[in-house]
Protein backbone atom coordinates (compact mmCIF):
# COMPACT_ATOMS: atom_id res chain seq x y z
CA UNK A 1 0.00 0.00 0.00
CA UNK A 2 1.31 3.44 -0.96
CA UNK A 3 1.18 6.08 1.77
CA UNK A 4 2.17 9.75 1.30
CA UNK A 5 3.43 11.71 4.33
CA UNK A 6 3.45 15.50 3.93
CA UNK A 7 5.17 17.72 6.46
CA UNK A 8 7.91 20.35 6.26
CA UNK A 9 9.43 18.91 9.42
CA UNK A 10 11.48 15.77 9.07
CA UNK A 11 10.87 14.94 12.73
CA UNK A 12 7.11 15.15 12.20
CA UNK A 13 7.33 12.82 9.17
CA UNK A 14 9.50 10.41 11.12
CA UNK A 15 6.91 10.46 13.89
CA UNK A 16 4.26 9.31 11.44
CA UNK A 17 6.62 6.70 10.00
CA UNK A 18 7.30 5.33 13.48
CA UNK A 19 3.62 5.07 14.35
CA UNK A 20 2.96 3.24 11.08
CA UNK A 21 5.61 0.58 11.75
CA UNK A 22 3.33 -1.78 13.67
CA UNK A 23 0.03 -0.73 12.15
CA UNK A 24 1.00 -0.95 8.47
CA UNK A 25 4.48 -2.52 8.34
CA UNK A 26 4.49 -3.25 4.60
CA UNK A 27 3.44 0.15 3.36
CA UNK A 28 5.44 1.86 0.60
CA UNK A 29 6.11 5.34 1.99
CA UNK A 30 6.49 8.61 0.07
CA UNK A 31 7.61 11.89 1.62
CA UNK A 32 6.76 15.45 0.60
CA UNK A 33 8.02 18.62 2.29
CA UNK A 34 5.32 20.99 1.08
CA UNK A 35 1.92 21.08 -0.59
CA UNK A 36 3.25 21.46 -4.10
CA UNK A 37 5.46 18.35 -3.84
CA UNK A 38 2.52 16.49 -2.28
CA UNK A 39 0.19 17.26 -5.18
CA UNK A 40 2.80 16.11 -7.72
CA UNK A 41 3.54 12.85 -5.93
CA UNK A 42 -0.15 12.26 -5.47
CA UNK A 43 -0.69 12.69 -9.22
CA UNK A 44 2.12 10.26 -10.08
CA UNK A 45 1.71 7.60 -7.41
CA UNK A 46 -1.97 7.81 -6.50
CA UNK A 47 -1.34 6.70 -2.87
CA UNK A 48 -4.14 5.08 -0.86
CA UNK A 49 -3.61 7.35 2.17
CA UNK A 50 -2.21 10.87 2.64
CA UNK A 51 -1.09 12.27 6.00
CA UNK A 52 -1.10 16.03 5.58
CA UNK A 53 0.25 18.88 7.69
CA UNK A 54 -1.38 22.33 7.40
CA UNK A 55 1.24 25.03 8.00
CA UNK A 56 3.95 24.55 5.38
CA UNK A 57 5.99 26.81 3.13
CA UNK A 58 5.48 27.08 -0.68
CA UNK A 59 1.94 25.64 -0.58
CA UNK A 60 0.04 25.08 2.64
CA UNK A 61 -2.07 22.03 3.56
CA UNK A 62 -5.43 23.68 2.86
CA UNK A 63 -4.51 24.36 -0.75
CA UNK A 64 -2.88 20.95 -1.22
CA UNK A 65 -5.99 19.27 0.17
CA UNK A 66 -8.18 21.14 -2.31
CA UNK A 67 -5.98 20.13 -5.25
CA UNK A 68 -5.71 16.48 -4.18
CA UNK A 69 -9.49 16.21 -3.82
CA UNK A 70 -9.82 17.87 -7.22
CA UNK A 71 -7.60 15.11 -8.71
CA UNK A 72 -9.41 12.32 -6.87
CA UNK A 73 -12.54 13.15 -4.93
CA UNK A 74 -12.26 9.87 -3.04
CA UNK A 75 -8.69 10.49 -1.89
CA UNK A 76 -8.23 9.49 1.75
CA UNK A 77 -6.54 12.43 3.44
CA UNK A 78 -5.91 12.58 7.18
CA UNK A 79 -4.79 16.01 8.43
CA UNK A 80 -2.28 16.01 11.27
CA UNK A 81 -1.71 19.52 12.52
CA UNK A 82 -0.47 21.65 15.37
CA UNK A 83 -3.43 23.92 14.71
CA UNK A 84 -6.04 22.36 16.97
CA UNK A 85 -8.73 25.02 16.82
CA UNK A 86 -12.21 23.84 15.86
CA UNK A 87 -12.31 26.37 13.06
CA UNK A 88 -9.44 24.62 11.26
CA UNK A 89 -11.05 21.22 11.74
CA UNK A 90 -14.32 22.44 10.22
CA UNK A 91 -12.47 23.80 7.21
CA UNK A 92 -10.54 20.62 6.40
CA UNK A 93 -13.55 18.35 6.89
CA UNK A 94 -15.54 20.58 4.57
CA UNK A 95 -12.71 20.44 2.02
CA UNK A 96 -12.86 16.63 1.99
CA UNK A 97 -10.41 15.37 4.59
CA UNK A 98 -11.45 12.16 6.34
CA UNK A 99 -10.47 13.45 9.76
CA UNK A 100 -8.04 15.70 11.60
CA UNK A 101 -5.73 14.91 14.55
CA UNK A 102 -3.52 17.07 16.71
CA UNK A 103 0.23 16.61 16.57
CA UNK A 104 2.11 14.55 17.51
CA UNK A 105 0.68 11.25 16.38
CA UNK A 106 1.38 7.95 18.16
CA UNK A 107 0.80 4.27 17.48
CA UNK A 108 -2.45 4.16 19.40
CA UNK A 109 -3.92 7.02 17.43
CA UNK A 110 -2.65 5.56 14.18
CA UNK A 111 -4.49 2.35 14.92
CA UNK A 112 -7.65 4.34 15.57
CA UNK A 113 -7.23 6.15 12.25
CA UNK A 114 -6.95 2.91 10.33
CA UNK A 115 -9.88 1.36 12.16
CA UNK A 116 -12.29 4.29 12.16
CA UNK A 117 -11.43 6.83 9.47
CA UNK A 118 -10.01 4.96 6.54
CA UNK A 119 -11.64 2.57 4.09
CA UNK A 120 -8.90 0.01 3.51
Amino acid at each position, binding site marked *: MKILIVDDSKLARMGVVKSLKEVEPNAELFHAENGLEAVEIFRQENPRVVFLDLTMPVMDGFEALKQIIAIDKDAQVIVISA*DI*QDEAKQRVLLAGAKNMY*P*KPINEEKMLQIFQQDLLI
Partner: protein
Amino acid sequence: MNIEFNEDQIDALKEFMNVSIGAATANLANLLGAFATMHIPRIDICDSDKLIPKVNATIDLTSMYYVTKQLFTGKFGGECMFVMSEGSAQNLGKHLYDIENCTDDDVNDAVIELTNILTSTIVSRLTQELDTGVQFFVPSSQFVDAHSIININDVTHYSKIIIISTILEFKDQQINSSIYILTKDEAIESLKMLIDKKIEEIYG
Protein backbone atom coordinates in the same frame (compact mmCIF):
# COMPACT_ATOMS: atom_id res chain seq x y z
CA MET B 1 30.66 24.78 25.07
CA ASN B 2 29.18 23.52 21.83
CA ILE B 3 25.90 25.21 21.25
CA GLU B 4 25.70 24.77 17.50
CA PHE B 5 22.47 23.06 16.44
CA ASN B 6 22.46 20.78 13.44
CA GLU B 7 19.69 20.69 10.87
CA ASP B 8 17.79 17.85 12.56
CA GLN B 9 17.92 19.57 15.93
CA ILE B 10 16.62 22.84 14.50
CA ASP B 11 13.90 20.96 12.64
CA ALA B 12 12.86 19.19 15.83
CA LEU B 13 12.82 22.37 17.90
CA LYS B 14 10.72 24.08 15.24
CA GLU B 15 8.27 21.20 15.17
CA PHE B 16 7.93 21.18 18.97
CA MET B 17 7.35 24.92 18.86
CA ASN B 18 4.67 24.51 16.20
CA VAL B 19 2.86 22.03 18.38
CA SER B 20 3.23 24.28 21.43
CA ILE B 21 2.02 27.36 19.63
CA GLY B 22 -0.91 25.42 18.23
CA ALA B 23 -1.89 24.45 21.76
CA ALA B 24 -1.47 28.04 22.93
CA THR B 25 -3.71 29.34 20.18
CA ALA B 26 -6.39 26.82 21.07
CA ASN B 27 -6.19 27.77 24.75
CA LEU B 28 -6.55 31.45 23.92
CA ALA B 29 -9.69 30.73 21.91
CA ASN B 30 -11.01 28.55 24.68
CA LEU B 31 -10.17 30.75 27.68
CA LEU B 32 -10.31 34.27 26.30
CA GLY B 33 -12.78 33.78 23.47
CA ALA B 34 -10.28 35.30 21.09
CA PHE B 35 -9.40 33.65 17.79
CA ALA B 36 -5.75 34.08 17.09
CA THR B 37 -3.30 33.32 14.34
CA MET B 38 0.26 32.57 15.27
CA HIS B 39 3.07 32.59 12.79
CA ILE B 40 5.64 29.85 12.27
CA PRO B 41 8.29 30.60 14.89
CA ARG B 42 11.73 31.88 14.03
CA ILE B 43 14.65 30.33 15.82
CA ASP B 44 17.87 32.27 16.17
CA ILE B 45 20.93 31.10 18.01
CA CYS B 46 23.17 34.08 18.42
CA ASP B 47 25.46 36.15 20.59
CA SER B 48 23.54 37.89 23.34
CA ASP B 49 24.26 41.36 21.96
CA LYS B 50 22.13 40.55 18.92
CA LEU B 51 18.97 40.39 21.02
CA ILE B 52 18.30 44.13 21.13
CA PRO B 53 18.66 44.71 17.36
CA LYS B 54 16.45 41.69 16.73
CA VAL B 55 13.72 42.98 19.02
CA ASN B 56 14.04 46.51 17.65
CA ALA B 57 13.60 45.25 14.09
CA THR B 58 10.08 44.10 14.88
CA ILE B 59 8.75 47.17 16.70
CA ASP B 60 8.00 50.82 16.08
CA LEU B 61 10.73 52.70 17.92
CA THR B 62 8.51 55.71 18.59
CA SER B 63 5.76 53.79 20.41
CA MET B 64 5.26 52.78 24.01
CA TYR B 65 5.09 49.09 24.85
CA TYR B 66 3.77 46.74 27.47
CA VAL B 67 6.51 44.26 28.17
CA THR B 68 5.81 41.21 30.29
CA LYS B 69 8.56 38.90 31.36
CA GLN B 70 8.05 35.54 32.97
CA LEU B 71 10.73 33.19 34.16
CA PHE B 72 10.54 29.42 34.05
CA THR B 73 12.94 26.89 35.47
CA GLY B 74 13.70 23.23 35.15
CA LYS B 75 16.01 21.28 32.89
CA PHE B 76 14.99 23.73 30.20
CA GLY B 77 14.85 27.14 31.86
CA GLY B 78 14.66 30.64 30.53
CA GLU B 79 12.56 33.69 30.14
CA CYS B 80 9.48 34.42 28.12
CA MET B 81 9.16 37.97 26.94
CA PHE B 82 5.99 39.30 25.53
CA VAL B 83 5.95 42.68 23.76
CA MET B 84 2.72 44.44 22.91
CA SER B 85 2.17 47.97 21.65
CA GLU B 86 0.09 50.40 23.70
CA GLY B 87 -2.75 50.39 21.17
CA SER B 88 -2.95 46.60 21.01
CA ALA B 89 -2.85 46.33 24.80
CA GLN B 90 -5.74 48.75 25.13
CA ASN B 91 -7.74 46.72 22.62
CA LEU B 92 -6.93 43.60 24.61
CA GLY B 93 -8.05 45.32 27.83
CA LYS B 94 -11.34 46.33 26.20
CA HIS B 95 -11.89 42.81 24.97
CA LEU B 96 -11.08 41.04 28.23
CA TYR B 97 -12.63 43.53 30.65
CA ASP B 98 -15.52 44.22 28.33
CA ILE B 99 -15.51 47.95 29.09
CA GLU B 100 -14.82 50.89 26.81
CA ASN B 101 -12.36 52.83 28.98
CA CYS B 102 -10.00 50.51 30.77
CA THR B 103 -7.77 51.80 33.54
CA ASP B 104 -4.03 51.22 33.25
CA ASP B 105 -4.42 48.52 35.88
CA ASP B 106 -7.01 46.71 33.77
CA VAL B 107 -4.81 46.87 30.69
CA ASN B 108 -1.79 45.65 32.63
CA ASP B 109 -3.74 42.78 34.11
CA ALA B 110 -5.13 41.80 30.72
CA VAL B 111 -1.64 41.73 29.24
CA ILE B 112 -0.43 39.59 32.16
CA GLU B 113 -3.32 37.21 31.70
CA LEU B 114 -2.67 36.78 28.00
CA THR B 115 1.06 36.37 28.56
CA ASN B 116 0.48 33.81 31.24
CA ILE B 117 -1.75 31.67 29.05
CA LEU B 118 0.68 31.87 26.17
CA THR B 119 3.90 31.26 28.03
CA SER B 120 2.39 28.58 30.24
CA THR B 121 1.00 26.70 27.29
CA ILE B 122 3.96 27.12 25.00
CA VAL B 123 6.56 26.24 27.59
CA SER B 124 4.50 23.46 29.22
CA ARG B 125 3.79 21.89 25.85
CA LEU B 126 7.40 22.25 24.75
CA THR B 127 8.73 20.69 27.94
CA GLN B 128 6.09 17.97 27.72
CA GLU B 129 7.35 17.12 24.22
CA LEU B 130 10.83 17.01 25.70
CA ASP B 131 9.67 14.80 28.60
CA THR B 132 10.77 17.20 31.33
CA GLY B 133 9.12 19.32 34.03
CA VAL B 134 8.87 23.07 34.38
CA GLN B 135 8.11 25.61 37.11
CA PHE B 136 6.72 29.08 36.40
CA PHE B 137 7.34 32.31 38.26
CA VAL B 138 5.11 35.34 38.67
CA PRO B 139 5.14 37.42 35.52
CA SER B 140 6.01 41.09 35.82
CA SER B 141 4.83 43.75 33.47
CA GLN B 142 6.21 47.15 32.57
CA PHE B 143 5.01 49.99 30.41
CA VAL B 144 8.07 51.43 28.68
CA ASP B 145 9.27 53.24 25.59
CA ALA B 146 10.66 51.18 22.74
CA HIS B 147 14.26 51.79 23.75
CA SER B 148 13.82 50.53 27.29
CA ILE B 149 12.43 47.07 26.53
CA ILE B 150 15.76 45.46 27.27
CA ASN B 151 18.69 47.01 29.05
CA ILE B 152 21.83 46.33 27.06
CA ASN B 153 23.93 45.91 30.20
CA ASP B 154 21.69 43.17 31.49
CA VAL B 155 21.88 40.87 28.50
CA THR B 156 25.58 40.91 27.89
CA HIS B 157 26.21 38.68 30.89
CA TYR B 158 25.38 35.71 28.72
CA SER B 159 27.48 34.48 25.87
CA LYS B 160 24.92 32.80 23.68
CA ILE B 161 21.18 32.92 23.63
CA ILE B 162 18.41 31.22 21.72
CA ILE B 163 15.66 33.50 20.56
CA ILE B 164 12.47 31.75 19.59
CA SER B 165 10.11 34.40 18.33
CA THR B 166 6.68 34.47 16.84
CA ILE B 167 3.93 36.95 16.19
CA LEU B 168 0.43 36.64 17.56
CA GLU B 169 -2.47 38.28 15.79
CA PHE B 170 -6.10 38.61 16.82
CA LYS B 171 -7.53 39.99 13.61
CA ASP B 172 -11.01 40.78 14.97
CA GLN B 173 -9.69 42.67 17.97
CA GLN B 174 -6.73 44.36 16.27
CA ILE B 175 -4.22 42.97 18.68
CA ASN B 176 -0.66 42.23 17.69
CA SER B 177 2.26 41.14 19.74
CA SER B 178 5.63 39.47 19.63
CA ILE B 179 6.67 36.62 21.86
CA TYR B 180 10.26 35.75 22.61
CA ILE B 181 11.46 32.68 24.42
CA LEU B 182 14.97 33.37 25.56
CA THR B 183 17.35 30.88 26.98
CA LYS B 184 21.05 30.98 27.59
CA ASP B 185 24.32 29.13 28.03
CA GLU B 186 23.77 25.92 30.11
CA ALA B 187 20.04 25.83 29.37
CA ILE B 188 20.89 25.68 25.68
CA GLU B 189 23.06 22.65 26.28
CA SER B 190 20.40 20.83 28.22
CA LEU B 191 17.81 21.77 25.59
CA LYS B 192 20.07 20.20 22.99
CA MET B 193 20.39 17.03 25.04
CA LEU B 194 16.64 16.80 25.46
CA ILE B 195 16.12 17.27 21.73
CA ASP B 196 18.71 14.63 20.89
CA LYS B 197 16.98 12.16 23.18
CA LYS B 198 13.67 12.83 21.47
CA ILE B 199 15.18 12.52 17.98
CA GLU B 200 16.77 9.23 18.95
CA GLU B 201 13.40 7.99 20.17
CA ILE B 202 11.53 8.87 16.97
CA TYR B 203 14.21 8.15 14.37
CA GLY B 204 15.53 5.12 16.24
